[in-house]
């Protein structure tokens, strides 16, 4: 065996520097509020935010619901829109990548819709659906659609032409080539879409809720502003970030299990 395992020391100095930097940042933040450098109507210190976090776990004031109700509402909306966008976007993108007819029919509309930021649809959806779940899900759906379609499309376009030619020599029909070669070959790109689409969905969910909601993390943030409670705002922001990160990690885990054999 030509290999021999060796223990190598990780540079401790850099780790300490990172921790120290983070600590200094939090400390600075805390002091800025404590020493009234910034008035407490504008910024809340980390300790205040943590305190509020503990309170909000059980107290529905001042925004009308307990913390996990808000989180759950946001997650529900996000995932509904997300799964719908996967359901529509991925098959659409795959078909568009292979069948000229599909691309010809759907691409112009797609290219028209694509540059419009999903948030810009909000006034229109309020016309259509009012301030309810449907409107928000619609926006999230539009947001998640774009990366799904693009990634699936590119995934199919990147299929190895040699494989296609080989299938043709066996007499495979267009549809068979699509199902048996293009789709499996596009899977890595499709899985990439899962992550990107989720990030877009989550971002736009917050936007949708900022404007038209009565529960959810975005609503929490807006409420905090209306009541001049920066600790509420910051708590909402951190929860948004944290939840988004956690979901991302979970999706990554699922993806790794499912794609265990395929080299990315």
């Amino acid at each position: 065996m030509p290999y021999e395992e060796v223990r190598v020391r990780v540079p401790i100095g850099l780790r300490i520097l990172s921790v120290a930097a983070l600590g200094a940042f939090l400390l600075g933040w805390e002091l800025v509020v404590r020493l009234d450098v910034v008035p407490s109507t504008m910024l809340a210190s980390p300790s205040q935010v943590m305190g509020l976090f503990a309170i909000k776990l059980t107290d529905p004031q001042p925004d009308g619901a307990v913390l996990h109700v808000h989180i759950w509402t946001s997650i529900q909306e996000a995932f509904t829109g997300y799964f719908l966008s996967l359901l529509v976007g991925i098959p659409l993108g795959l078909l568009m990548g292979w069948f000229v007819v599909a691309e010809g029919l759907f691409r112009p509309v797609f290219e028209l819709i694509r540059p419009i930021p999903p948030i810009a649809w909000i006034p229109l959806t309020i016309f259509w659906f009012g301030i309810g779940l449907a409107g928000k899900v619609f926006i999230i759906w539009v947001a998640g659609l774009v990366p799904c379609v693009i990634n699936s499309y590119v995934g199919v376009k990147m299929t190895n032409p040699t494989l296609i030619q080989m299938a043709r020599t066996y007499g495979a029909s267009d549809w068979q080539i699509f199902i048996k070669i293009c789709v499996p070959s596009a899977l890595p790109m499709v899985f990439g879409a899962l992550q990107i689409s989720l990030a877009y969905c989550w971002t736009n969910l917050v936007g949708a809720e900022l404007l038209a909601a009565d529960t959810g993390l975005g609503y929490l943030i807006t409420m905090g502003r209306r009541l001049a409670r920066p600790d509420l705002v910051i708590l909402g922001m951190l929860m948004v970030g944290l939840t988004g990160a956690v979901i991302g990690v979970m999706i990554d885990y699922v993806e790794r299990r499912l794609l265990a054999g395929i080299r990315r």
Partner: protein
Amino acid sequence: MAKIVCDRVSKEFIQKGKIRVHVLEEISLEVKENEFLVILGPGQSGKSTLLRIIAGLETPTSGSVFIDGKPVDGPHPSRGLVFQSYMLFAWKTVMGNVEMGPKLRGLPKKERREIAQHYINLVGLKGFEKYYPHQLSGGMKQRVGIARAYANNPDIMLLDEPFGQLDAQTRYFMEKETVRIWEAEKRTVVFVTNNIDEAVYLADRIVTLKGKLPGRMGPTFVVDLPRPREHTDQAFLELRQEIIDSTELVL
């Protein structure tokens, strides 16, 4: 006095943070001035590492390398290196790539353009000065690599399996070109390859490495055949057979 002296060079790496890999074991060799030396060995026998140590990009774990009697202290423009995967600057044209060496040494524009043009002509790429690497074929890219290394006027040229990524036809062609360029402007050359035919075609002397991880010195062969050589020549084939018999190299 030999130009390059390797004295019992050994090298170990630590890969992926945990695994100690022993790449070279006690390599000792000498290269004379303006000699064309080929280092021949199977894959993973540490040939590239040896070349990088001579270049000064890696330091040996034990043993030392002397050039002109002085120990090697790091990379230096007096040694030119041609890489296996071209390593051209994608954002510069052919001219931009070749003139990079003189540019880094601070030569004025007119002078370095002249030098670069001379070497571009030498490798046979006249007319392609304004092309970007992505517009060139593999053989052309490697010629740019050679011109770029030559343009710095090094005493020693080090080539690391430069034709490994080319198809057979282009490879034969490039071997001929290499001999032509070398005979036009003689330098000390250390050329690494795993291809016996290439080694016998090009070398004044062949040093073989054998074994994988670590690679060790194998027998040395002197190639006395007159140039230009023929792959089908009797003496050529005999020498080739001799090398095959004495090493584990399979065609």
